[in-house]
C-alpha cells in the first residue's frame, strides 16, 4: 500500500514536479542503496535549511540512506536543529512538544503494531541531546526500561544549538556556554552507561567520519529495534556555529573528537548479535550471488 502512495496514478507522473518524478523513478524505494551510490540516485532528503557545514545534516542524510523500508517508516522528533532537516525528508515526521518523543513513539509504535500486525513499521526517534537527556529524560528512560520497539538516535551537538548555545546535559564539563557562565559544573551525562543499565539490545556511539559505518550502524539499530526492543545510537554532530568551527574544518573536528573522546563503540545483546550476524551473512551471500 505505502509504495503505491509514492507512485502516481498512470499518466499523471509526467505532470508532477521533476523532483517528484526523480523520487519515483530514481529514489531508494524498494532498493538497498549504499554510500557509494550517493549522487547517483534521488535521496529522500535533499533540500534543507541547515547551516553550511553542519555535521548533523550529514549524519541525518546518512540515516535516511540507511532506512530499510522508508515507505513504512515514521520519524518522531522534537524542537531542535535536527527537525529542520528531518521534516524535509520524504518520510512522515511527527513534531511534537519538546521532550515528548519517546512517549509519543511508544504509543505510536504499539498502535501501528495493533493496526498492522503483518506489516512491520519502523518508528525512529531522532532528536538532539537537550530534547532527550534534559527535558525528555524521563520519557527516554522509561521507553528504554519498557524495551519499546523503536530506535532512538541522539544528534549530540553537546549544546542547545537551536536556541542559541545554552549548555545541555551532554555539554562537556567546564565548557563556558550560555547558561553556564562559569563553565559547566557537572560532567557530560553518561547515556551509553544508562543504556547499558537499561539492557538495550543495541547501543552505539559514533562520529560521522566513516559514512559506510554510519549507514551500517543505523540499519542495525533500526532492524534490531523492529525485532526485539529499544536501541540507541549516539552521534556526535558538532555545531559549527556555536563552537565556531570554520566550515572547511568541520570534518577535521569530527576526526579529532573521535580520536580524543568519542571513539566508535557498539554493544549488542546476545539475541541481537545472533540476529544481525545471520542477517548480514545472508545479505552478503545475496550480494555475491547478484554479482555473479
Amino acid at each position, binding site marked *: *500500500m*505505502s509504495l503505491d*502512495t509514492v507512485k502516481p496514478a498512470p499518466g499523471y507522473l509526467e505532470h508532477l514536479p521533476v523532483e517528484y518524478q526523480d523520487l519515483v523513478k530514481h529514489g531508494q524505494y524498494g532498493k538497498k542503496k549504499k554510500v557509494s551510490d550517493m549522487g547517483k540516485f534521488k535521496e529522500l532528503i535533499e533540500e534543507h*535549511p541547515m547551516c553550511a557545514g553542519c555535521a548533523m545534516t550529514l549524519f541525518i542524510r546518512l540515516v535516511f540512506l540507511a532506512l530499510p523500508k522508508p*515507505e*513504512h*517508516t*515514521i520519524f*518522531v522528533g522534537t524542537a531542535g536543529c535536527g527537525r*529542520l532537516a528531518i*521534516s*524535509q525528508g520524504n*518520510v*512522515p*515526521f*511527527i*513534531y*511534537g*512538544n519538546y*521532550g*515528548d518523543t519517546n*512517549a*509519543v*513513539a*511508544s*504509543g*505510536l*509504535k*504499539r*498502535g*501501528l*503494531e*495493533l*493496526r*498492522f*500486525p*503483518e*506489516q512491520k*513499521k519502523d518508528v525512529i526517534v531522532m532528536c538532539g541531546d537537550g530534547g532527550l537527556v534534559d527535558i525528555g529524560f*524521563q*520519557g527516554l*528512560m*522509561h521507553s528504554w526500561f*519498557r524495551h519499546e520497539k523503536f530506535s532512538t538516535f541522539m544528534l549530540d551537538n553537546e549544546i542547545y544549538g537551536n536556541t542559541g548555545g545554552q549548555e545541555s546535559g551532554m555539554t562537556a564539563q567546564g565548557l563556558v556556554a550560555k547558561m553556564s557562565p562559569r563553565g559547566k559544573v557537572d560532567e557530560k551525562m553518561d547515556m551509553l552507561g544508562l543504556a547499558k543499565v537499561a539492557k538495550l539490545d543495541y547501543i552505539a556511539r559514533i562520529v560521522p567520519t566513516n559514512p559506510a559505518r554510519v549507514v551500517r550502524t543505523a540499519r542495525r539499530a533500526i532492524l534490531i529495534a523492529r525485532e526485539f526492543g529499544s536501541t540507541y545510537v549516539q552521534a556526535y554532530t558538532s555545531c559549527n556555529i556555536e563552537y565556531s568551527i570554520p566550515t572547511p574544518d568541520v570534518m577535521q573536528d569530527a576526526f579529532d573528537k573521535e580520536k580524543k573522546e568519542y571513539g566508535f563503540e557498539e554493544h549488542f545483546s546476545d539475541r541481537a548479535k545472533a540476529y544481525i550476524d545471520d542477517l548480514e551473512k545472508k545479505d552478503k551471500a545475496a550480494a555475491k550471488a547478484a554479482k555473479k
Partner: protein
Amino acid sequence: MSPETAEAKQNSTSKHANVPGKPEGWVPAGDLQEVISLEEMQKLPKETIFMTGSEAARESIRRANVDMAIAYPITPQSETMQQAGYLFDEGYIKDYYRAEEEIGTMSAISGASRAGVRSLTATSGPGLMRGMEALASWPGARVPIVMLNMCRVINTPLAIQPDNAEISFLLNTGMLVLHAENQQDFFDWPLVAFMVSEEVDVTLPCTVSVDGFFVTHARGNVAMCDKKYKIPPRDGWRNAVPSMDNENPPARISRDAPIQKSNFISYHMHASWQQEVFSAVQRSAKYFDKYLGGLIEVVNPGADEMIIASGAAVSQAREAVRQEEEKGNKVGLIKVKTIRPFPTAQVIAAAKHAKVILVPEFNQTGWLHKEVCTTLYGHTQAVIYNGPRVYGGMTMPTELILDWLKDIREKDKSRNHF
C-alpha cells in the same frame, strides 16, 4: 479501502495466536463480542445495577472496543484505570500500560491515536495539569482520544477531594468537554465520546469529566446492556487528517510546522488551522445532540427561577427542584451536558424568559457562571446570581440552593450577582 491493505490482511489472520501468559488458543474476550452501532446499543434492553462510577466507567470501556489504554495512577482515577488493566488481561482492550507520569501518558496516547487506533486515557486534577502541555496540543494534532477526567482539587493545600476547577483549563484547548452528572452518565458518555470524536468532520479529543469521589467512589443506578455487545471499532482511514501510518501522505502540518517559518503565510496557516479546530468543535454538536438526546436537559421549562448546572451539582439541583415543588414552587433546571461545544442557542432558548438564574458549582472560580453570563448577555432580563459555590472538597447540601432561593425571594442583598 482496497483489500490489499496491510490492515485487511490482519482480519484474515489470527490476531492473538500466542499471547504471553495465556494458554494456547486463548481468545480475547473482545473478539467474542458482537459489534453494534451505538444507536442500536442505546435501544437494547438494559439491566439496572447499583454500582460505583469507577465500575460504570469500566463497563463502558468494556463495550467501547478500545485498542489502546495508557494511564498513570492518581486518586481518584486509579480505581478505573486499574480496572482497565483487568479488561486488557481479559482481552477487551488490545494494549495497555502504566505510563511514567502524565506528560508521558498524554504524549504516548497521542502517539497511539496518531497510529489510527482507538485510544483511551484517564486522569485527575493534578495529573491533568501535569499533562496539560501535551493535551493542549491534541486538538491541533487532530487525535480523537477519549480522556476520562475524575475531577480533584488542583490548588494548594493538596487534597484529593472533588473540586472541578480543572475543567476551566480545558475550555479553550479545542477539546470536546463533557461534564457528567452521575454514574449513569459515566457509563453512557464515554461511548458517545468515542463515536463523536472519531466522526471524520470532528476528529478531536474528548474529555468526559466527572466530579471525583461523589461519582467515582459512590454507588448509583446504572442501566446497561449486556456485555456481549461493543460499539464499532475506530476506522483509522477515516480522519480529518491522515493517520501517521505511512499508508497515506501525511498532513503538511506535521511536515512544515508553521513554527519553522516566521512570515505571513505561516501565521495565516496557523490561524486557519486553529479556526478549523474550533469549527470542528461546533460541528460535533449535531452528533452529541443525537447520542445524548440534546445538549441540555430542561426540567420545568418556563419557570421564573432557573438553575443552570453541570456535573454533580445537577443532582443537588434536582433535589432542590423537587423540594421546592413540594412547597408549591416551580423552579426550573437546565443541565448542561456539553461544556464544549457550549450549547449557546439551547441555553438562550431555555433561559431567556427567566427572572432569576442560579449557577451552583463545585469550584471557586465559577467557570460555568462565566459561560452562562457570556451566553445570556443581551438575551435575558434575568438576574444571574454568582453562585452558590462550594470548593476544596466542600459539600453542597440541597439546603444551600434552597437558602439562596429563599434569600433572593426575600430580597436579601447578601447574595451577589452580575
